[in-house]
Each structure stands twice: as C-alpha cells, then as structure tokens.
C-alpha cells in the first residue's frame, strides 16, 4: 500500500494558530524553503526520523478555509488533493477553537486521515478554557494531541500519534466520517454524488466533497470537472447541477455557500457542547489592556515612531559601530589572500592578482553589513512575533492605502530602509505577506526607492564635497524624500500599469501579544541573513567578474603599452644611477627591485592605516620580520647611504604610482564599460553626468556600494596619499566645472535609480515574471534620468544653487503628495457614501 518510503505529513492550519512554530518543533533544523511550482507561495519541507523511519513534513500556507478564493488556499487544497498526505496534522488554536474548527471540518470532508493538534494550550489555560480532549477526539473520530509549539511541548506525543495513526491507516484505511449533517441539502448532495459516480476520471477524488464544492459553485472544482471529463461530458452535468442549485436556493431563499457555512457552524456548536468550558469569561485579557494604550488614538503614532526609531538606533547605528569591530577581520582576510596571490609586477599586476583582490573587495563590502542585518532581522522578528507588526499595519493602513499600498507594506519599507539603512533584497522578500496583489506589486516596485545601506556612502561623499554648510538639511531631505517618492510612485503605478491587478480587502486578525522566544528570533534572523548572503553573494560575485572583465577589455593598444614600458624602464634606470655609488646597490636592484618597491608601498600603507603608537610599533615589527635586509631602506633615519637610497626609492615608488594611474585611466577609457559610459554622454549630459560618473552609476547596478568604489578608482589617489576621496573628487570635479547642482542631480538619480541586480533577481522571484523584473529596471532608469535631467537643466537655466534646487524638488514633491492624498480621501468618502446609499 505504501507508495513511497516513509510517511508524508502535511501541516494545515489557520493563520496565527502557531503552525510554523509547531513545524519547527516537529522537524528541528532540517528544513528547506522553496516555492510551490509556478506561484510565489512558500513551500516549507522538513523531515525527522522516529524509531520506525523517516517522516517527511510539509508546512502548508496558513489558510482560514479551503475554498479557491485566495492563492494560499488554492495551493493548500491542491497539495491535499494531489499529494494525498498519509496524515494531515490540523493545527488549531485551542484558545479560539470555534473558529478553527471550520477548517478542520473542511479537511475531514476531504476524507484526509488527520491528527488534530490543539496548539497554544497554555494561552487557552491562561484564559480559563478547559477542553475535554477525549470527548473531542471521540466526536470527531480523529486523534487529538495537546501542544504548546512556542515552548516545544507536545512534540513526542504528536510524533507518536502521527506514527500510530499512519500505521493504523496503512493497515485498514478508514477515512474520517462525514462530520456535518447538511439537513435539507443532504438529498441534493446524494443526487449529485450519484451522477458523479460512473465517471472513472474523477473516482480518485473524495466524492461527497466534490459534490458539495460543485453545489457551492466553487470555480476550481468546476474547472477540475471540465478538465477531467472533457467539455462535452461535463456540460450536461454542469447544467443539471446548476438546476439543482437554483431549485434549492429558490426553495430555501439562501445561497448554498451561506447555507453550508451555517450548517458547519451549528455542527461546531454541537461538537463543542460539553467539550469546552470556561470560554465565556468576560474579563479583559492582557492583550486588550495593552492595546488600550498602544492603539490609543493619540498614543499610537508615538509608539510607532518610538518602535521604528528603536529599530533604527539598535540595528543601523549600533550595528554600524559593530562593523568597526568586525571590519578588521575582513581586512585581515584580504591581506591573507593578497599574500597568497601572485605578487605585483612593477607596472602591471597579474590578472589573477587583480581579479582575486577585486572579488575579495566586493565580497567584503557585502559581508561588512552582516552584523547590521543580523540585528535588524532580529528586531523585525521580535516585532513580528510579539504581534505588534499587525498593529503597525492597522495604524498605517489608511495612509498607505490611499497611495495604493497596504498596511502590511510597512515591514518591506522598513527593511528597505525608510530613512537610512536597509536592504531592498529582504524588503522585496518580505512583500510575500501582503494579501492584496496590486498593493503587493506596488510595494515591490517602491521598496528599491528606500535608502539602502549602500546608497548612504555616496550620499555622504557628495554631501562632504558640496554641502558642507547644509549637511544636516540635506540629510533630512535625503532621508525623508524616499517615502515621499515611494508614495507618489506607488500611486502612479497603481493608476497605470498595475490598475488591472487583483485587489483584496484589508480584513485581518490582530493576533494576541506573545513574548517572542530567543530561539524563534535567532532562527528567523539567521535564516534571513543567510538568505541575504546566499542570494546577494552569488549574484554580486558573478557580476563583479563581469564588471571586471568589462573594465579590463580590450586593454591598452600595443604602442601605448610599449610607451609605458619605456617610461618604466627609464624610471628604473634613474633609480639605478642614483644608487651607483651606494653600498645598498646590490640589495636594491636587479631581482630585488620589484619586491623592494612592493615592500615599500605595503609598508607605507600599513603605517598609514595603523592606529596609535602601539599599532605603528606592530607594523614596524611585522616588516622587520618580513624582510630585515629591506627594512633600513624604508624606515626614517638610518645612516647616510640608507637615507640616500630611501630618497631614491621614494621617488621611484611615486613615479611608479603615477604611471600606473595613467595606465589605469587610459585602460578604463578604452574599456568596454568606458566606451559605453562615453556613449551615454549625449543622453546623460542633460543630467550633468560625464563618462566617469556614468561608469560609476553603471557599475552600481551590480551592487550599490561599488559606485563609491568605482568613483574611488576613477579619482585615484596620486602623489598626495593622505587626500581623502572627498578632496580628490572635489578638486577633480570642480576643475571639470562640477557644481552642487550636479551633486543634487546625482543624488536624485541615485534615489530613483533601478534596484541593484540582486534586488531585481528578488523581484523576479516575488513576481514570478521576467517581464516585471525588466520593468523594475527600465521604469526607474527613465524616471531617475528624467528627474535628474529636469532638475539639472532647469537649475542651470535659472542659475539655482544646489541647495535651492534640492529644496524646490523636495517641497514640490511634498505638496504634490498632500494634494493627491487629500484628493483620494475625498474620492474615497464619496465612494463610501455611494455604497452606503446602495445598501
């Protein structure tokens, strides 16, 4: 009878019944999250072993019932029908048994061998609810187990019951008896069942269930009938059933689906009579008392702000400080790898070295954020698990809904980085929970407008160069304009490309407050961070390779190469001549020359980054150990000959750096990416972008953080080592006539710029379509370039300063936001009045 090894168990239950927690308890760490084929609903698998064998466990999406109205319900139902799990564990909220049993009855009507897990027994007991489990099991004809998922209680009894019940079912299959008596509908059900009986193609489906679904007019059941029997055979059946429906509804004056729900509700009342006691209890629960304060009309916004601020402070501000601790480890890792890679040549580095370091740098910038994400995700998990997240949705729904978003868009927007710091990848990932398709899509496309952590360095850089006096005002603009733009764009998209998408109502349950468990929070935080590393890491590394290649190909023309080689020869010759009379000559020339120059530059860099006297001392010791013979030539002081050699060496190193820089610039200018960047100038000139900025913006598509890195490379340090990127870029761009207006143009473009590649991959995953992924790239590009060009061109025409232009854009957008918000409010109340009068 066993068609597969081991036992297949499905966990089904309503939302907030603690199903996922119980799934974790049951399966431990061995689980795997995927999507159901073709749709974006999570499919969680796990497995565990008991004394008999392996038990494969699937966590179905949480659903209130098993109709075909929502995607989650269709997915759950299809799995139960198609895969016929050996045991369905129905997880119910013991403190809300009446409502939970509606789903139970539907599962039993599908004739699925089941086990009822009475979860959250502690909450029920806390409310003085007593449940006669034996009596309930007797009446339902299903084994009942009490569990407290959050505390890991009831795992072993549940596992044992699953095993025992599956063994019993394997020996003598006994599907659960029909749990509901539908009274006047029973003869009709029997009639339909009789008509369905002769068809072999539907013989595998539970017949009574199918008859009932068809009578309820369930669209999926009807299409299944047509699919299995063929259009021709199904038509007379459908007509007959249609006639039966009409006759019943006319006779009883009620729609069959309403009648069915009513019958189930009465059946549940009878089931629970004498089984549950103490459920009445008029006393107010802790949740109600907390909500009186937390959801108070005047206090609620304050609590909300406080929460968001706390998350920001703990994860972004403190997390950033934590990265100061973790960064040295990453830097050390880079040093280690740099030591293993082939060492630098005088003029050209071996490809293996430059590519290797390029990859390490790309990986490090991402890994640098890991501490921040661990904390951020833990904070979010606490807010979610405690039950406050649903309340945030409740508070903010009106504002968000007015612009086409949803109360539950809050979490994705926070993750994306509402004011400063976040990441669009987990943000887009978190849109999964939004039940309204249109609002979900709008959220997916607006999350990338948030200030992700990687946008911040560029903002800081530009503010440091151009807005020294107005830094705080600009920071305020930048950190609040994200939400203004996001709301405006959401409204725009909702009214245009998304207008055809399905919407659904905001009907949601506010869960009771729970104290989050350390285990649950840690698990969620690790899970999400790992997803970030995996998804982002692979994409970013792959793209880093591509960008590297595009920056290096086709390389310098031969005559330029020869020219640089000649220059290098000359520099080396000068060095050798300078040392002609010097006793250090043999040590410093010949095969030793390149290692010595590398030694010198490494030493200088190490000294520059070393902090304090102790750090400086450690560097000294390290380099003495590395090569004691070279050391006298790099340190300050020493005998006359050594000083002379050191001077010559310094000169040589400077000449080398200048040559390398020149080569580097020429190579980039000639590279594929450089050509593209220059090719874009005719379009981007209206926004004020030259080819260097174009390249930076192009490479930031790979990962935002690389924009600053690329700018750093393009404005590479020359003689004066201590000049920061701010100073270098400031000088270079001011020479090129750059103004604060250009900086504003860049900031605006960067704020509206398409999501990085990793995010667009996530958009593909969440929308399930390459078309929408492409849209998520093209639309912001056009929008960003349009806005930046308009601001730059108009700003130049009227001679506006940077801060003036930024203020104009900000307040213009703000006023637009207010107008649209007020207009749609009037429209909404008009609609409401209209509906009201229609009744």
């Amino acid at each position, binding site marked *: 009878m066993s068609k597969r090894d081991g036992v297949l168990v499905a966990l089904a239950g309503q939302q907030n019944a603690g199903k996922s927690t119980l799934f974790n308890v049951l399966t431990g760490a061995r689980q795997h999250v995927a999507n159901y084929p073709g749709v974006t609903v999570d499919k969680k698998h796990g497995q565990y072993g008991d004394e008999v064998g392996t038990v494969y466990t699937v966590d179905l999406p949480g659903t209130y019932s098993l109709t075909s*109205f929502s995607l989650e319900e269709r997915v759950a139902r299809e799995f139960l029908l198609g895969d016929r799990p050996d045991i369905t564990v129905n997880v119910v909220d013991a403190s*809300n048994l009446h409502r939970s049993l509606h789903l139970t009855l539907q599962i039993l009507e599908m004739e699925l061998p089941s086990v009822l897990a009475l979860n959250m027994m502690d909450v029920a007991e806390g409310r003085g609810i007593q449940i006669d489990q034996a009596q309930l099991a007797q009446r339902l004809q299903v084994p009942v187990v009490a569990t407290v998922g959050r505390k890991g209680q009831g795992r072993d009894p549940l596992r044992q019951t699953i095993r025992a019940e599956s063994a019993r079912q394997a020996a003598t299959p006994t599907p659960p008896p029909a749990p509901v008596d539908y009274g006047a509908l029973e003869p009709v059900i029997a009639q339909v069942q009789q008509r369905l009986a002769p068809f072999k193609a539907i013989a595998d489906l539970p017949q009574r269930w199918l008859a009932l679904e068809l009578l309820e007019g369930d669209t999926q059941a009807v299409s299944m009938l047509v699919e299995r029997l063929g259009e021709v055979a199904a038509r007379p059946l459908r007509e007959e059933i249609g006639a039966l429906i009409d006759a019943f509804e006319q006779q009883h004056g009620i729609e069959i689906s309403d009648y069915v729900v009513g019958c189930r509700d009465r059946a549940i009342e009878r089931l629970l009579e004498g089984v549950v006691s103490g459920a009445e209890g008029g006393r107010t629960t802790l949740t109600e008392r907390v909500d009186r304060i937390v*959801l108070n009309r005047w206090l609620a916004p304050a609590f909300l702000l406080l929460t968001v601020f706390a998350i920001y402070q703990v994860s972004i501000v403190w997390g950033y400080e934590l990265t100061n601790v973790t960064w040295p480890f990453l830097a050390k890792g880079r040093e280690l790898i740099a030591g293993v890679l082939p060492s630098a040549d005088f003029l050209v580095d071996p490809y293996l070295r430059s590519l290797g370091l390029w990859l390490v740098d790309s990986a490090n910038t991402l890994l640098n954020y890991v501490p921040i994400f661990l904390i951020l995700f833990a904070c979010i998990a606490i807010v979610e698990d405690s039950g406050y997240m649903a309340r945030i949705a409740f*508070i903010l729904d009106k504002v968000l809904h007015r612009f086409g978003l949803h109360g539950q868009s809050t979490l994705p927007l926070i993750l994306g980085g509402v004011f400063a710091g976040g990441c669009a990848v987990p943000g887009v990932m978190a849109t999964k929970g939004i039940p309204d398709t249109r609002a979900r899509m709008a959220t997916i496309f607006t999350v990338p407008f948030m200030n992700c952590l990687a946008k911040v360095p560029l903002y800081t850089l530009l503010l440091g160069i151009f807005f020294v006096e107005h830094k705080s005002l600009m920071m305020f603009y930048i950190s609040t304009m994200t939400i203004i733009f996001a709301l405006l764009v959401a409204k725009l998209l909702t009214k245009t490309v998304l207008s055809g998408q399905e919407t659904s109502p*905001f009907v*949601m349950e506010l869960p009771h407050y729970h104290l989050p468990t350390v285990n649950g929070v840690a698990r969620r935080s690790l899970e999400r961070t790992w997803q970030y590393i995996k998804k982002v890491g692979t994409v970013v590394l792959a793209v880093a390779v591509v960008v590297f290649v595009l920056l290096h190909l086709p390389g310098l023309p031969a005559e330029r190469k020869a020219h640089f080689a000649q220059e290098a020869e000359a520099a080396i010759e000068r060095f050798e001549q300078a040392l002609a009379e010097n006793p250090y000559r043999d040590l410093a020339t010949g095969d030793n020359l390149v290692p010595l120059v590398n030694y010198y530059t490494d030493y200088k860099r190490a000294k520059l980054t070393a902090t304090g006297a102790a750090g400086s001392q450690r560097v000294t010791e390290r380099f003495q150990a590395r090569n004691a013979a070279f050391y006298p030539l790099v340190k300050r002081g020493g005998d006359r000959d050594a000083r002379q050699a050191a001077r010559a060496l310094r000169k040589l190193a400077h000449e080398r750096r200048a040559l390398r820089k020149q080569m580097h610039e020429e190579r980039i200018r000639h590279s594929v990416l450089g050509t593209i960047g220059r090719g874009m100038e005719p379009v981007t000139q209206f926004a004020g972008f030259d080819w260097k900025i174009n390249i930076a913006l192009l490479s930031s598509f790979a990962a935002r953080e690389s924009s600053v890195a690329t700018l750093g490379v393009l404005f590479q340090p020359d003689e004066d080592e201590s000049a920061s990127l701010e100073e270098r870029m400031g000088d270079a761009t001011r020479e090129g006539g750059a103004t604060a207006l250009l900086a504003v143009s860049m900031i605006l473009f960067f704020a509206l710029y398409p999501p990085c590649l990793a995010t667009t991959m996530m958009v593909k995953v969440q929308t399930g379509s390459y078309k929408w992924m492409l849209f998520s790239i093209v639309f912001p590009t056009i929008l960003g370039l349009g806005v930046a060009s308009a601001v730059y061109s108009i700003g130049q025409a009227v001679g506006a300063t940077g801060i003036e232009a930024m203020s104009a854009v900000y307040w213009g957008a703000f006023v637009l936001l207010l107008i649209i918000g007020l207009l749609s409010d009037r429209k909404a109340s008009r609609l409401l009045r209209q*509906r009201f009068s229609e009744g």
Partner: protein
Amino acid sequence: MPKMPARGGARTLNDIRPGGRVRIRRHHSEGAVRQRLLDLGLMPNVVVTVVRSAPLNDPIELKLDASSITLRRREAITIEVTSEEPES
C-alpha cells in the same frame, strides 16, 4: 436605489461607534471578501463589539469571541447589523 433611512433604519458596521455591540444581520459583499469575513467568524447572527478605529479613523477593530478582527470602512459598510438582541 432608495436611501438607507427608507429601509427601516438598517445600519451597517460602519455606523457603529467604538464600544457598540451589534448582531450581524447579513453581508452585502460577494466572493472573496464575503468568504474572508465568514472565515474570520463574522457570520450572520454573531454578536460583535466595535473596539476602536485606527488613529486616522480607518480601519476599525472588532472583537468577537476571543479574536480581534480589523477591516476597512469600505468593507464594514457592506455588513448590515441590528441591535444586539437576537431577532425572534
């Protein structure tokens, strides 16, 4: 369509102030919305209490049995209610 008052003062959940207890009479919504409302226990003849409205007046929170349900006013207006005494 006649105005509401002409229909014998039938009220909807949208009219109930916080603290009000009412009995659900019938739903005027259809399809997925109706199913959702029923799933959450808002069935005809069930007594619910309007707990509060959100700081910006919409959505509203209801209490029935042990659970708290929130819905927007545009859905609330489709739920016809009567005073809490059951209809005989």
